[in-house]
């Protein structure tokens, strides 16, 4: 096998491996971007959890909640393009009305908790914290975590 043939072969293998997930470079960008948003939610709710469990002081609780609400505000548009792949189930688009409503509730809910945290402090925000964390309710229907 010439070096070129070997190179061409390995490129083809890489292309085949990526093919099922990535329809085109643009589609890959759409998926990467919405996953950056979701991973930020993951890390910020992790940070919140550590505050709620009492290990970390609540000084930055409002900051973490506000980050969640800012990410939420970007999320509906990030899922608007019909690009299947990642861990999204096809239902994200086939049941768009319900998915959009869940996203919208997440946007308004997390914005409300941010306002409570800023105006009334972390203790009051704790009473409403689950309004900023409707993660599981959406994932159970629209995310398949077994997909890569």
């Amino acid at each position, binding site marked *: 096998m010439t070096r070129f043939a070997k190179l061409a072969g390995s490129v083809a293998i890489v292309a085949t491996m990526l093919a099922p997930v990535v329809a085109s470079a643009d589609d890959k960008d759409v998926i990467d*971007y919405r996953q*950056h*948003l979701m991973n*930020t939610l993951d890390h910020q709710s992790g940070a919140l959890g550590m505050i709620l469990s009492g*290990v970390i002081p609540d000084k930055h609780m409002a900051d973490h909640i506000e980050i969640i609400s800012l990410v939420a505000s970007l999320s509906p548009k990030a899922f608007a393009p019909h690009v299947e792949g990642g861990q999204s189930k096809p239902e994200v688009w086939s049941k768009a009305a319900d998915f959009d409503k869940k996203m919208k509730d997440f946007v308004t809910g997390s914005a409300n908790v941010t306002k409570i945290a800023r105006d009334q402090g972390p203790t009051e925000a704790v*009473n409403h914290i*689950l309004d900023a964390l409707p993660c599981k309710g959406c994932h159970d229907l629209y995310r398949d975590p077994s997909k890569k």
Partner: protein
Amino acid sequence: MNRLTRFVASVAVVAAIAAPAAVRADDQDTIAYREDIMKTLGDQAASIGMIIQGKAPAENIVAHTQILALAAASALDAFEPKVAGGESKPEVWAQWADFSKKMNEFSMAAADLAKTAKAGGLEAVKPKMQATMTCKGCHDVYRQKK
């Protein structure tokens, strides 16, 4: 069990599963907390990079720089407890004056970037990117990649 207790309990379970035997649970959480903040910075830097390359909506720059600034503002306090471990070098605490100076400068630059984005959008942000993203300058001295 009320909803909050249940939430706290489930977080505690996850933390317990993740904790290596050698490190106390509280120390493990302290390390996980600062790493959650750093990972947030990582996803935000990547998102901002995608926007600059035209791979994500330009108007989102305002929210992403705000998130960067909020995460940066919480970072210094997260390193305050002297808990060695994770990817932190001992120098974080041995040279605390320099470490905190670097972190404060980063946080101020990030806050300025957020203001710039709000006022002038993506084009105003671009020329300030390099001076704001001092990540590597700190990591080279204070982070030991595992």
